[in-house]
C-alpha cells in the first residue's frame, strides 16, 4: 500500500507543478522557469525546517511566498518578450536559478553533523516527515489537501471574472487591451500565482524526497511542468490532473511490465498523444461533452 500512497503523492506534487504552468499558460505565456520557483520553494522551506526547526506548514507558506516573489521579478521583464523569446528568457532565468543553487553553500553545525545545502552535493537529510512520525499515508493526505485547495481555487477563479480576463489575454492581447484590460497587471499576477504554486510544490517535493540538488531542477523538469497542461488541455484544471496521471501513472509506473520498452514508449506515446489530440485531452469541446454527460446523468436520476 505504501507504494500506492507514494505514487499518489508524486501525482499530487506533479499536478501542482503542472497547475503552476497552467495558470501562466492561460494568459498565453509559455514559461519554462517553473522548475526555478519549484527549487526556490524547496530550498527555502527545507532550510526553515532543517536549520531552524520550523513547523512544516509555515515553512510551506514561506516557500510559496518566495516562489511568488521571484516570479513577480520575472514577470515584469517578461512583458517585453513574447512567444519563443519568452520561452528562451524563462529558460535562461530557470537555468540561472539552478546554477545559483549549484554554487550555494550554507551549512550549520547541529550536534556532530553539519546540515544545510552544500553546493553541487545538494541538501541532504530533510527528514521532517519521518522524524515527526508522519506515515506515507499522512504525507499523501497532506499533499492532496493542498492539491485540492489549489485546484478548487483555480476552478473557482476560472468561473469568475478574473478567469475570463486571464483567458481573454491568452486568446487575443490586442482585443483584450482594447476593452480596457490592464495587460501588465494580468500577466504579472498570473506569473506570481504560478510561481507561488510551484514554490508550494517544491516544499512538498523537498520533504518527501529528503534530498534535493541542483540537477533535479533543470530544464527537463520545467519542460514536464509545461507538458502537463499542454497534454491535458487548457479548458479545465482536470486536464492537467489527467495528464499527470497519464504520464506518472501510466507511462512511468503502469508500463513497467513492458520492461525495456517502457523507455522507448515514453517518448513515442507523448508524440501519439499530441498527434491524436493536439488541443489536449480536455479541451473546450471535450469539456462541454463531459458537462452535458453529467447534466444528463443528473436529469435521469
Amino acid at each position, binding site marked *: 500500500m505504501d507504494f500506492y500512497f507514494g505514487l499518489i503523492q508524486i501525482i499530487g506534487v506533479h499536478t501542482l507543478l503542472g497547475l503552476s504552468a497552467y495558470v501562466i499558460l492561460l494568459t498565453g505565456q509559455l514559461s519554462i522557469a517553473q522548475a526555478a520557483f519549484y527549487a526556490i520553494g524547496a530550498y527555502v522551506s527545507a532550510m526553515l525546517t532543517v536549520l531552524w526547526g520550523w513547523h512544516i506548514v509555515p515553512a510551506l507558506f514561506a516557500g510559496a511566498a518566495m516562489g511568488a516573489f521571484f516570479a513577480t521579478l520575472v514577470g515584469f521583464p517578461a512583458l517585453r518578450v513574447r512567444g519563443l523569446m519568452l520561452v528562451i528568457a524563462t529558460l535562461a532565468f530557470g537555468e540561472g536559478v539552478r546554477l545559483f543553487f549549484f554554487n550555494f553553500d550554507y551549512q550549520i553545525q547541529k550536534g556532530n553533523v553539519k546540515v544545510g545545502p552544500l553546493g553541487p552535493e545538494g541538501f541532504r537529510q530533510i527528514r521532517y516527515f519521518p522524524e515527526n512520525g508522519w506515515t*506515507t499515508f499522512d504525507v499523501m493526505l497532506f499533499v492532496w489537501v493542498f492539491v485540492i485547495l489549489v485546484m478548487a481555487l483555480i476552478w473557482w477563479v476560472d468561473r469568475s471574472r478574473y478567469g475570463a480576463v486571464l483567458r481573454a489575454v491568452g486568446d487575443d492581447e490586442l482585443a483584450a487591451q482594447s476593452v480596457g484590460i490592464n495587460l501588465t497587471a494580468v500577466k504579472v499576477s498570473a506569473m506570481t500565482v504560478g510561481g507561488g504554486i510551484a514554490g508550494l510544490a517544491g516544499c512538498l517535493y523537498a520533504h518527501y524526497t529528503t534530498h534535493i540538488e541542483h540537477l533535479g531542477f533543470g530544464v527537463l523538469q520545467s519542460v514536464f511542468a509545461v507538458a502537463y497542461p499542454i497534454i491535458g488541455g487548457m479548458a479545465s484544471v482536470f486536464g492537467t490532473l489527467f495528464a499527470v496521471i497519464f504520464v506518472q501513472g501510466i507511462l512511468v509506473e503502469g508500463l513497467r511490465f513492458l520492461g525495456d520498452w517502457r523507455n522507448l514508449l515514453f517518448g513515442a506515446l507523448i508524440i501519439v498523444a499530441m498527434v491524436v489530440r493536439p488541443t489536449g485531452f480536455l479541451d473546450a469541446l471535450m469539456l462541454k461533452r463531459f458537462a452535458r454527460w453529467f447534466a444528463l446523468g443528473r436529469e435521469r436520476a
Partner: protein
Amino acid sequence: MSKIALAVAAAFAATLGMQGGALAQEKTIKLAGFGVKSGVLRLFGLNSEAALKAAVEEVNKAGGVKLGDGSKAKFELADYLDDRCNAEEGISVVRRIAGSDALIAIGPTCSNVAEPLYGILQKKVDDKGDTGLQFPILTDVAIKGGLAKISEWSFRNVPSEFTMYSSLFYWLKTKHPNLTTVYGGVEEDFAHSRASWYAVMKDRSAANGYKVLGESKWLLNDTNFSTQVREMKKANADIVAIAAHPFTTCGVLKEMQRQGVKPKLLVGLTSTSSMETLAGCAKHAQGLIIPTSFAPVTKESKHAAEATAKKKGAADLHSMAAWENVFILKEAIERAKISGNKDAASLQTDRRKLRDALAATKTTKGLLGISKRTEDREADKPYVFVHAKGNDWVVLHNPL
C-alpha cells in the same frame, strides 16, 4: 453429460490440490535488483542485471540457501526495475519492491538516487518515532562517499576510493621517484567526481609527497576543453589526474593530444575503468592508470566474468559488486536463520533479521579476496591497478 463434466472437474481439482501441496513445500527467497536502464547509464543496469541473474543461477544450482528450519530454498530474482537515475522514481521503485515479498533490494546505480533513497529509510532501527521505511538495501554501484551511514538499513559493497588512491599514489611515488608534480581535472557538477578529486586524489597525492599544482574544472556534459587544457599545459605537471566520467575524460584526452600535452603519467577515476572509455577513445586513453576493485586475476573473478558474459553482461567493478552481493546475502541469510514465510509479519521479521546479520558481518568473500566491512556499513575491498592497453584494461600492478 454433466456427470462427465463433474468427474473432469473433480479430477482437475484433485490435481490442483496436489500441485498446491507440492508448491507449499518449496520456499523461495526473493531478491530484487534495480538501477538505471535508460539513457547514458543504460550499460550499468544491463550489466548489474546480468550479474545478478548469473549469480542467482549459480547459488540455485548449488542447492540454494539454508533457512532457519534447516530446509533449503531457492533464490528468486524479481524483474530488474529501471529508476532512470531519478530520485522520485527510485523511491517509488523501492516502495514497490518493499510492498512485494522481496527480502532485500540490490541497487541503485546513481548516487543522486541513493542519497534520497537512504533518506526515506528509518534512520535508527528501534526508533519507534521514526516512520521511515524499514527495508534493507545492499548497494552495488552508487559510489559517492559516506552515504551508507545515513540509515541503519542501508549497506554498500562499493570500494573505498580513499584507500585505493592512497595506495596508488604511494606506489607511483616508489616506482617513479623522479616524478613530483600532480595536476588535476575535475567534473565539478557531479557530486561523485567532484568529491573524488578534492577529498581523495588531491588529498592523497599531497599526503604522499606530491606537489599539487592545481586543477582544471569542467561540467558533466561539456564538450569544449580548450581553455582547461591550456591551463593544464601551462602547469606542465608530471602526472595528470582526471576525476571525470568517460564522456568528458575522452573529450579532455582528445584535446590534450591536439594541444600536445603529454604528461608522464595519467591517472583516472574509478568508474572510468570500463568499456565505455575504450569505446569512446581507446587510442587516446592508452596508459590511463586506474585503481579498481575488479579485474579477472583470480579464479573466482574469471569464473564470475564468464558466467555474467553468458547472460550478456560485461564484468567490471560495478556489475561484479552485484555478483558479490548475491553471495554476501546467501551467507547472511543462512546466519540469520530466515523463516522464508511469505505472510506479512514473517516477512518483516525476516527483513529485520537479514539487516541485523548484515550489520554484524565483519568480512565478506569478494572476488579478489576478503573484503572488510566497516562500522558505518561500507566496504573495504581489495583492489588492483589497471591501465588501458590496446582495447582492454590490463593489470598494471597487483598488490594482493
